[in-house]
């Protein structure tokens, strides 16, 4: 039996354009408006739906010192009113049209998105451009919303020892650079954030020349450009501050820490190594490191860590490596290991070090490298199924100092990395002794860390 559904055919004016070829490159079009707004259009004609995202090249790492959390707080406040729209009106318009919306803040960017029927795209542009420079905040809105972000901090961080541990580790890794400050902010600074703080950050950073528009869905690029000119074209440039952030002084010695909290049931170890992130036009070193991360601990039990620690020695029940290749500034390569029952963190760490040494000794398993390349190739196909995922990839990359060409080049670069390059990347990152090693544990099973340098116990005022 076949049932044809016409419900939507009546609502949408879908034009019968042919589906572009199945490569990502053929689906991407890029423009820049005269006022500096960058535009990326991603065609996906499977359904009459569009994802409209506006990204600002301003995140938590761009905050003034002492105002931690202001980028994220402002993101919340953008849902209040503007000169032409009542508070909540934007959200209500999306809601009565069945759309969904949200926003997010990271260290390097802040983004806003709506997912709606494609005929609403001009309206989304009208509303999003309206709040780029027309925000109106009342003192009362700001104070109430500040309570919301404090509860958000409670939910995300204060109630989760693993998150508190993560903040603590970041602080040790980045004593000077703002990546050591949590996106949501420190409690004591968040509770002092004001309307004026929000507006200052807003005026400094929210401008077309500091933003990227990403539109993905059942659209034609030239039509998106015309609409964007209408709605975003009239916005004025601003003197946005240069994104030059303080850098870390050289680390002279490894840092070690034990973090205890009675709410921890499963202890584990994290170790971070400083690593360079992707650099526009020169991504090869990062690609090699990315491949090393996949090989060493990125594929579960088939990875080097998985085989050695989990399968052979049975010393861990979970373990992984991770490399955040995309960041405006430097990044980290990190290792994570959860001990098997009865294994101490000291024994686990010893095994971790032995595993690193073994890898540097044995080198890359060519078959594993080949399998990873097969998967990277396949991901190119699977990724096309996720419209908003593609939009996010471009938005995050472009606001982290990369270009459309860098994004398109990346999978091919990964494919071309040789075993020798992987080993070179491995040695480069693992020989850096400026590591931070942290043990997270519950209070009852506290054990002594050899060469302990710093030790903290969670409690009020400590984080």
């Amino acid at each position, binding site marked *: *039996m*076949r*049932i*044809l*559904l*016409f*419900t*939507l*055919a009546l609502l949408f004016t879908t034009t019968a354009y042919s589906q572009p070829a*199945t490569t990502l490159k053929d689906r991407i079009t890029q423009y820049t408006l005269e006022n500096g707004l960058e535009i990326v259009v991603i065609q996906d004609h*499977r*359904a*009459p*739906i569009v994802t409209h995202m506006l990204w600002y090249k301003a995140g938590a790492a761009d905050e003034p010192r002492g105002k931690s959390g202001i980028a994220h707080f402002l993101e*919340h406040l953008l*849902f209040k009113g503007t000169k032409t729209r009542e508070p*909540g009106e934007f*959200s209500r318009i*999306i*809601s*009565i049209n*069945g*759309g*969904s919306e*949200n*926003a*997010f*803040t*990271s260290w390097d960017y802040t983004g806003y998105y709506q*997912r709606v029927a494609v005929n609403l795209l001009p309206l989304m542009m009208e509303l999003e451009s309206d709040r780029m420079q027309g925000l109106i905040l009342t003192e009362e809105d700001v*104070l*109430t919303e*500040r*309570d*919301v972000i404090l*509860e*958000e901090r*409670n*939910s*995300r961080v*204060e*109630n*989760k020892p693993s998150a508190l541990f*993560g903040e603590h580790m970041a602080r040790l890794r980045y004593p000077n650079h703002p990546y050591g400050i949590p*996106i949501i902010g420190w409690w004591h600074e968040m509770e002092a954030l004001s309307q004026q703080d929000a507006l200052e950050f807003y005026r400094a950073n929210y401008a077309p020349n500091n933003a990227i528009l990403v539109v993905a869905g059942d659209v034609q690029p030239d039509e998106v450009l015309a609409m964007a000119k209408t709605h975003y074209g009239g916005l004025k440039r601003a003197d946005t501050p240069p994104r030059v952030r303080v850098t870390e002084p050289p680390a002279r010695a490894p840092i070690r820490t034990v973090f205890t909290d009675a*709410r921890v*049931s*499963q202890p584990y170890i994290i170790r971070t190594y400083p690593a360079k992130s992707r650099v526009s036009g020169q991504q090869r070193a990062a690609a090699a490191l990315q491949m090393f991360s996949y090989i060493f601990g990125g594929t*579960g*039990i*088939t990875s080097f860590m998985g*085989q050695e620690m989990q*399968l052979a020695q049975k010393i861990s*029940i979970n373990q992984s490596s991770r490399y955040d290749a995309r960041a405006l500034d430097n990044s980290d390569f990190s290792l994570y290991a959860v001990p098997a*029952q009865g294994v101490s963190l000291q024994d686990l760490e010893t095994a971790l070090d032995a595993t690193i040494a073994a890898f540097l000794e044995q080198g890359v398993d060519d078959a594993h490298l080949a*399998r990873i390349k097969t998967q990277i190739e396949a*991901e190119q*196909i699977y990724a096309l*199924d*996720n419209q908003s995922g593609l939009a996010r990839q471009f938005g995050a990359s472009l606001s982290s100092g990369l270009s459309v060409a860098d994004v398109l080049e990346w999978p091919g670069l990964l494919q071309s990395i040789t075993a020798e390059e992987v080993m070179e990347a491995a040695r480069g990152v693992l020989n850096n002794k400026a590591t931070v090693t942290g043990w997270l544990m519950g209070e009852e099973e506290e054990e002594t860390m050899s060469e302990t340098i710093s030790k903290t116990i969670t409690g009020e005022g400590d984080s």
Partner: protein
Amino acid sequence: MVKLVMLKRILICVWAVFGAGGFGTALAATEIQQVDSPKGIHAWLVQEPSIPFIAFSFHFQGGTLLDADDKSGATNLMTELLDQGAGDLSAEAFSRRAEELAAHFTFRASRGSVTISAQVLKSNMDEALALLKSAIHAPRFDADALARTKQQTISSIESKGKKPRDIANTALVASVFGDHPYARTVEGLVETVGDLTHADLTAAHARVFVRDRVFIGAVGDITATDLGAVLDDLIAGLPLADADLPAKAAYKSKGGVQVIDFDTPQTVLRWSLPTLTRDDPDFFAAFVLNHIIGGSGFQARLYTEIREKRGLTYGINSYLATSRWGDLWGGGMATANDRVAEAVGLIREEVQAIADNGVSEAELSDAKKFLTGAYPLRFDGNKRIVKILSGMQADKLGVDYIATRNPQVEAVSLAQINAVAKRLMDAEGLNFVLVGRPIRGEW
């Protein structure tokens, strides 16, 4: 360091919401084909040739609630082990083979089902599905893999025992469904999981994988004929069920406030009320009512009163969870320990207000616009549509539901929804679970 991304809003859910109403999708001028294989296996198919891969979803009805009391966790552990060695392949060899084929398999147990999701490339579909077949038909439950997965599961159970959200979710379900198997956690207990044997897993496998309790969807670059062959190969060889499914769980809570002491700064709140069944003539009225009081989007009453006006929480929402195993209306939020009493009072007030005064014409109209408008937007790629296809069948909804669903939402009248509000909403009956160290108030 993990780069966290902050989201402005979150949703809370204590339930696997199969059948939470409005399940399904309107595929814009897309065809759903009903396929019956030569050997009589039924599936729903959407052909989508533009990307060369195929997504499958197999929903086997009867999940962890099939476990005996002293074997709680058997179905979950069995499910976890499906790809940890099967046929001729050890766990490691199985993973390697999946990597070579770039096939994605996910095996997941929930209270009422075991679901298998698969995404495979068109270019090697036959090999990928042969691997999947071995996981479904011939899992090995090797001693090594069993010991390893047991440890991981026990670690997870113990961790959840120290997470306020998980403690609250588990306690809420237990307070509602008592000693029915539907009230148990998916992973089981440390004691029961520790004792599970190879024989227990084999028995759990035989209970779950039967050909008369599976609902199948496929979306992607595959024809009906080819899908028929896949169904015969993967499913037709499974046995028929030889035991009845458990009876439905009754809603037992009489209401009240249960405080679970946990030393943490923010209390997690969960609440519930009895509700109607999926086949009740007023189901759609209750569904729209839930949206108005605590549904998604930023317009709901609880969101407006508790977050927007008072800043008491980051996230608050409610949901209607109806299934063949049990029904409840529930919700959740979290707030600092010293603000819990205020929050409990406000939730009670809102529930009573909607019972006493109903909703306005404008609220009803806005809710209908959202619910009907959002429906077609649910089909967001092959992977998402395919879950909807199998889920709709599990909910006993016909393909025509896609066409009738929005008209049923539209048909809810103000008189009907307000009568339903009076019938279902009851501040006295609210069953609260609070996990944290709340400053005691008037409750």
